[in-house]
């Protein structure tokens, strides 16, 4: 049984990011504390398919009593051919909030996504659709 008022989060680190797992977990833990919760389970996408994120949704569906999922960075939704908005919507429809530790950004539900969608889209456009560097 969950402790009263303490939220349970699933932690999902970025397979592609250069920072080692313990450093990513530190940042994710900080976010969990800020959101009044703690990390209960953790996992990551397989390196060879991480750009399509096939692991996380089924994993969340079969993991009970999860209030939210904390990704290390929003970049994890940007490695494919387009921003993976569909996965984000699918997770929120499970009544699981989505958080991005590095960006200190939380999306509590679909209505919240409506107000923050442009920030995500613009981030993808500005960060992943450039060629000058």
């Amino acid at each position, binding site marked *: 049984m969950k402790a009263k008022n303490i939220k349970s989060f699933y932690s999902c680190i970025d397979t592609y990011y250069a920072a080692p797992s313990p450093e990513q977990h530190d940042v994710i833990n900080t976010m969990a504390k800020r959101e009044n919760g703690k990390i209960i389970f953790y996992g990551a996408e397989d390196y060879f398919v991480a750009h399509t994120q096939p692991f996380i949704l089924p994993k969340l569906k079969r993991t009970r009593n999860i209030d939210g999922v904390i990704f290390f*960075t*929003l970049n994890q939704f940007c490695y494919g051919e387009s921003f993976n*908005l*569909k996965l984000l*919507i*699918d997770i929120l*429809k499970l009544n699981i909030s989505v958080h*991005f530790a*590095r*960006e*200190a*950004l939380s999306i509590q539900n*679909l*209505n919240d*996504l*409506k107000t923050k*969608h*442009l*920030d995500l*889209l*613009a*981030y993808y*456009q*500005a*960060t992943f*659709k*450039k060629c*000058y*560097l």
Partner: protein
Amino acid sequence: MDFHNGYFVKKCEKIESLSALKLQVCNLIREEFNIECDDDEKVLNQFHEFVNEVSAIDLNEKRMLLIKKINQNINLKELIFNSFKDTILDLLGPDLLVQKNCNIVIQMPNDNNPSELHRDAPGNSPYEIVLWIPLVDCFKTKAMYLVDYKSTLELYDDLEKNLDWEQFERKSIKKSSCIPVKFGEALFFSTAVLHGSHINKETETRISLNIRFKNIFSPSGLKNQLQFFEKFLISDFVEMGSSLELKKLIVQNEKYEG
């Protein structure tokens, strides 16, 4: 506006906003450093005289606290934007991000820690604009120095060939100009140009703000856009476009009743 140098000085479009900002900063300085002086100009320009008994460690602590208070208590972003609205919109369009924290720099006479020669890009995006806003009149070494865009590129070409940083610094300083900027004006400059400040050899303190604006969709720098910036202004046009796309995706996916 002529931007071929990579910078220009622009007169404030709404002096009431900038004056309100200056007054609020001045009052917080009075409060933080227990300064009993009614003359705003004196509080700012002669700041070093009011704090000459304070130890270097205490001064730095109070200065950090002041910066925090200024960011928390004054609506800096709004006041700065209103002061230079037309110029910012002309440069970047109507969909804007603003730096989350405005920087406040206090450069007292003979402080031997001036801002070293550097340029902000590519850490910062070359599509960002920097606004440097002095709260006092700045001239000679009390002002900032900048190297024009063409010379900056030549200097970096040279640096890449020779890898001699000291020579690069010497040549850059030689090519640089101190840009006089009065209160009521702002120095707009590209993140792509070299800049810094000399040791302030004048008899007055320089107190200045700097903040960056960026179009929401323009390429970001190496810094994470969502960490460094926040949404400031979005046009109805872009709002409409993005909400249509989202609505379509949610509806496609089944019975969401938002």
